[in-house]
């Protein structure tokens, strides 16, 4: 390992992604990025476990909805899906601004991304409220329980993402990521896009797959 590379690994925060030493296998991917990817893989497998349980319960049941249990509202959740896609776009635009050393623009877009997450959580709270009033109660059926467990586990990720992005936005506004030091913004972006990616799958499997008539 060269002296430069050794110094880089000793103080990863003080090396900009552009100066990150090239690894034969992982190229210019920073330690922070690799760490986040490994975390996301383990997180993806947690979601996979929940979705598998849901798939097995649903595939093996003769009737999925108990009498009186409401259908899930697809148009409203499609709106939430669109909201998350929009927040993914503001995330990449914030990242792009940070790479180009435009602090104000980066702060604005990162803040908008966090706001998108907050709106998503409000939407989810609204949805839960409506569904529980219509008679969808946790524990009453496999349908209700898997729905609440999977969507709230995702909602918890959105909440985590909003907290994470708020911290990153403040740090950006304070100029911590100026002059090419945008690595932590990119790593936060990975987490946020992952939350969007998981929602794409949850939306399909939990909401869109039609009930057996």
């Amino acid at each position, binding site marked *: 390992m060269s002296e430069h590379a050794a110094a880089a690994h000793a103080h990863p925060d003080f090396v900009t*992604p*552009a100066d990150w030493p090239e690894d034969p*296998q*992982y*190229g210019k*991917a920073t330690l922070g990025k*690799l760490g986040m*990817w490994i975390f996301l*893989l383990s997180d*993806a*497998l947690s979601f*996979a*476990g929940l*979705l*598998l349980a849901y*798939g*097995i*319960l649903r*595939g*093996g*049941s*003769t009737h999925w909805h108990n009498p009186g249990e409401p259908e899930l509202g*697809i*148009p409203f959740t*499609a709106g939430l*899906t*669109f909201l998350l*896609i*929009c927040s*993914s*776009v503001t*995330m*990449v*635009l914030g*990242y*792009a601004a940070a*790479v*180009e050393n435009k602090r104000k623009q980066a702060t604005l877009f990162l803040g908008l991304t966090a706001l998108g997450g907050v709106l998503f959580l409000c939407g989810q709270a609204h949805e839960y409220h409506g569904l529980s009033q219509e008679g969808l109660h946790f524990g009453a059926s496999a349908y209700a329980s898997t729905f609440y467990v999977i969507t709230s586990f995702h909602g918890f990720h959105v909440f985590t993402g909003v907290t994470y992005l708020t911290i990153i936005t403040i740090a950006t506004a304070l100029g911590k990521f100026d002059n090419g030091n*945008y690595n932590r913004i*990119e790593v936060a*972006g*990975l987490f946020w*896009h*992952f939350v*969007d*990616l998981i929602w*794409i*799958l949850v*939306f*399909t*499997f939990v909401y*869109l*797959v*039609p009930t*057996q008539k």
Partner: protein
Amino acid sequence: MAHVNRKQYMVIFLVLFVLTILELAVVKMPAIGRTPMFIALIALAVSKAAFVGLYYMHLKHETRILKLTIAIPLCTPAVYALILIAEAAWRRLS
């Protein structure tokens, strides 16, 4: 070099939007059978997820070994799903 391509980001946004509309269209389609609908929905969801991963998470620009590090573990739940859900459905039907 960092990968910034605003135009491409917006194109991907448009693609994700159109694919979401397509998903809703597939669900509303009256004459489609359950199995084709299910396959179409999975194909749409997986392509949307792939677009997010490749372009927004920049996987497209990572090294081959990093792509494989991520892709291979993610294939295992799909295999489990195929076997275990098919088994559960088979029990129900038999």
